[in-house]
């Protein structure tokens, strides 16, 4: 059943892409959306069946790819990623109907979204090097096309697409190199054959393979310093695409690290995983800091993705290190926490990106400094965005809390480890979790407070209207998922546990006791968010009842409405409100060494006297320090090399003939 459902899903997504390309403008949007929603449902059923039963399926066809054929196999680890993609995809398909309703997207734009979805569903099922690389490249290409949807209207889109294309292909080249190396030495290119022969591989070889693939997968996952495409591509892509990129595609980077490191190479050395954890620590802190300093809604969310991927990588790295150190039970717990956080991140980041798209749709801008007052105009969007923001800030009763609690517990339990290096790494992980928790809360207080409360700061925000039902259903679906997983996390944890045991080769035992809450199996530690929320609700009801029923004076019984206190000023304008920039300013000042903000203050004086300024302009930019320090010099060097190389072919036929002759001589010399 799982096989059939999964392939129906793939087929439906491909059919959606085809219909999106051929149907007339009026029908194609709806047809593509309905078919891709059906595809997601079918894939969810297929993946769910694999997860619940624990039985993988595998299929081989020789017809599709020449020479190698196609190997597809869905084990619980892959099924978890398919399921997460399918849930986000379902919401995105629904949302895309309303999103495209005003300006019907072009044929290519309508077709690329389901095609992107299909490749996202395909990658975790690939079971051989050739199949994997083909699926991976298809995913890169379809996501690049999807990113380019708005390239006619905005120049920045092309710039973002160039960055994305370069980063993703450098990464793919590294993965290809690593996997080909692996396949050549393991005597077969199917993943099963590689896993069976891994004991015969030498350690230097596996280390090289791991580092190469880690580079590639980290660039897809958006780990610092390979994250530079994320804050460019996510804001420029249409919101359904950025939701899929952030909610599903970056996950596959983590999937690749787990698949190669744990499944194919069998865990390997401890230092591999310490490198992964170190990447996670740097990404989490850097991403959270930039998220707190950003004023563009989607850029903020993109950096927050870097932050959350960092948290997941900390978990994956810690799990790998613990497993390599022989603590399998604990490694299982930490990996469970990391994968649970990954699923939760897919839910709340998908919801937030869709919400950001609704804001842009309604107010015409992504700039927080020009939004404001939207809670009254778009109440449902505000509630859904708020649910996502509270989840990502890890407030109890929402899913972010559940997974971060598990991650904290897992990392803290590891302090009993005998290896000093592991303890140091875990300590760094715990400290990172703590600091990013605070920074993330700051970032989302800013997004929610400045974006939705107060008075509108621009005409667009003032004229905003609530978005249509399909967009609300899309957002509400994911927000509902955040709430459900937050209150009863126990319903999905056993399923994720199965994926964890598949991910860790050495077979961790159950990390979680069955039940609706969170109860660790190995040590006595548990928390039940459902009880917590229930108790809170009861307390609220009691307090409300007490206030209603208490005897009160006549004055209190008839409440008086008064204007907001504005220090006695006659006129209150939106210019007096705190902006996203000013909210982030103190933090930016404290972390000026990392964020390196650029200030530019220009004062022009009146002609008569320098004491009277005529105009003052202030510009501020917070550029990515990594981009400035690492990428710009490399790009400048490449450009310089290109200019130098351009002098060689100067158009002279004599010179070209000389080149040909010299090459011939060289070849003869080498061969002789």
């Amino acid at each position, binding site marked *: 059943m799982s096989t059939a459902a999964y392939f129906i899903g793939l087929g439906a997504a491909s059919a959606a892409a085809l219909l999106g390309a051929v149907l007339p403008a009026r029908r194609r949007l709806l047809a593509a959306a309905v078919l891709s929603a059906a595809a997601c449902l079918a894939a969810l059923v297929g993946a769910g069946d694999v997860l619940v039963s624990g039985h993988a399926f595998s299929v081989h066809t020789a017809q599709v790819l020449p020479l190698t054929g196609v190997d597809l196999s869905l084990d619980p680890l892959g099924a978890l990623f398919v399921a997460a993609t399918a849930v986000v995809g379902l919401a995105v398909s629904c949302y895309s109907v309303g999103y495209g309703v005003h300006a019907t997207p072009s044929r290519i734009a309508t077709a690329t979204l389901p095609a992107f979805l299909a490749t996202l569903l395909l990658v975790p099922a690939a079971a051989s090097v050739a199949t994997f690389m083909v699926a991976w490249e298809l995913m890169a290409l379809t996501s690049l096309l999807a990113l380019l949807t708005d390239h006619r209207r905005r120049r920045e889109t092309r710039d973002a697409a160039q960055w994305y294309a370069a980063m993703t292909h450098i990464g793919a080249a590294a993965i290809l190199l690593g996997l080909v190396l692996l396949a050549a030495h393991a005597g077969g290119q199917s993943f099963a054959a590689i896993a069976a022969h891994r004991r015969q591989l030498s350690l230097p070889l596996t280390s090289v393979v791991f580092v190469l693939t880690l580079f590639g997968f980290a660039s897809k996952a958006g780990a610092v310093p390979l994250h530079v495409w994320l804050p460019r591509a996510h804001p420029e892509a249409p919101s359904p695409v950025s939701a899929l990129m952030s909610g599903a595609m970056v996950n596959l980077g983590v999937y690749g690290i787990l698949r190669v490191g744990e499944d194919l190479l069998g865990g390997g050395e401890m230092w591999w995983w310490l490198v992964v954890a170190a990447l996670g620590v740097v990404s989490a802190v850097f991403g959270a800091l930039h998220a707190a300093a950003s004023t563009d809604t989607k850029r903020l969310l993109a950096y927050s993705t870097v932050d959350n991927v960092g948290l997941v990588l900390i978990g994956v790295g810690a799990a790998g290190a613990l497993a390599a150190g022989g603590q399998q039970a604990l490694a299982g717990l930490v990996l469970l926490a990391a994968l649970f956080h990954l699923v939760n991140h897919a839910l709340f980041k998908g919801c937030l990106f869709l919400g950001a798209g609704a804001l842009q749709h309604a107010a015409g801008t992504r700039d927080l400094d020009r939004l404001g007052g939207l809670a009254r105009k778009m109440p449902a969007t505000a509630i859904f965005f708020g649910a996502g923001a509270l989840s990502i800030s890890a407030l109890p009763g929402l899913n972010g809390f559940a997974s971060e609690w598990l991650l904290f517990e897992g990392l803290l339990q590891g302090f009993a480890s005998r290896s000093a290096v592991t303890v140091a790494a875990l300590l760094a992980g715990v400290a990172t979790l703590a600091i990013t928790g605070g920074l993330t809360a700051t970032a989302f207080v800013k997004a929610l407070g400045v974006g939705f409360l107060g008075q509108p700061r621009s005409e667009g925000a003032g004229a905003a209207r609530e978005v249509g039902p399909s967009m609300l259903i899309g957002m509400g679906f994911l927000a509902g998922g955040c709430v459900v997983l937050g209150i009863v996390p126990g319903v999905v944890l056993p399923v994720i546990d199965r994926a964890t045991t598949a991910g860790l080769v050495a077979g961790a035992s159950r990390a979680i006791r069955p039940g609706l809450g969170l109860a660790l199996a190995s040590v006595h530690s548990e928390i039940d968010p459902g009880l917590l929320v229930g108790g809170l609700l009861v307390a609220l009801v009691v307090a409300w009842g007490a206030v209603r029923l208490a005897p009160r004076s006549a*004055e209190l019984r008839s409440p*008086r409405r*008064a*204007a907001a*206190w504005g220090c*006695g*000023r*006659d006129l209150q304008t939106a210019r007096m409100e705190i902006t996203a920039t000013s909210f982030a300013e103190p933090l930016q000042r404290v972390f000026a060494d990392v964020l390196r903000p650029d200030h530019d203050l220009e004062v022009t004086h009146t002609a008569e006297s320098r004491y009277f300024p005529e105009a003052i302009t202030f510009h501020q930019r917070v550029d990515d320090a990594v981009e400035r320090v690492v990428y710009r010099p490399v790009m400048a060097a490449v450009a310089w090399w290109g200019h130098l190389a351009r002098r060689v072919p100067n158009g002279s036929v004599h010179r070209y003939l000389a080149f040909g002759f010299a090459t011939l001589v060289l070849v003869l010399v080498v061969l002789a």
Partner: protein
Amino acid sequence: MQLRHVDAGSCNGCEIEIAQAFAPVCDAGRFGARLVASPRHADGLLVTGVVTKNMAVPLQMTFEATPRPRVVVACGDCAVNGGLFAGAYGVAGSVHDVVPVDVEIPGCPPEPSEITEALRRLTGR
């Protein structure tokens, strides 16, 4: 008793005396009187000076922003009846022309001990 001080157009004489009333010699604070930063936190207003035209609306808004029940203390001759500036250019009137006054403290300026005494009548200590 928490009071929000509003300078409605004072010459700052009363302000100096109010500061002295809360300084160690008289120390109105030990009788339960306090100056606070927002009318939202206040039980009443402590208004000094004649009410100028520019300050009439802000005074009214501050009064509206104070939760009920609230008291208004007019401190100094100008606040009580216009004093030296009664009928002058740019003057809207004394405090009771703008908001209802509950306690008056005469004097130009009233001494710290007089201010403290009036506040003690409000706090009841």
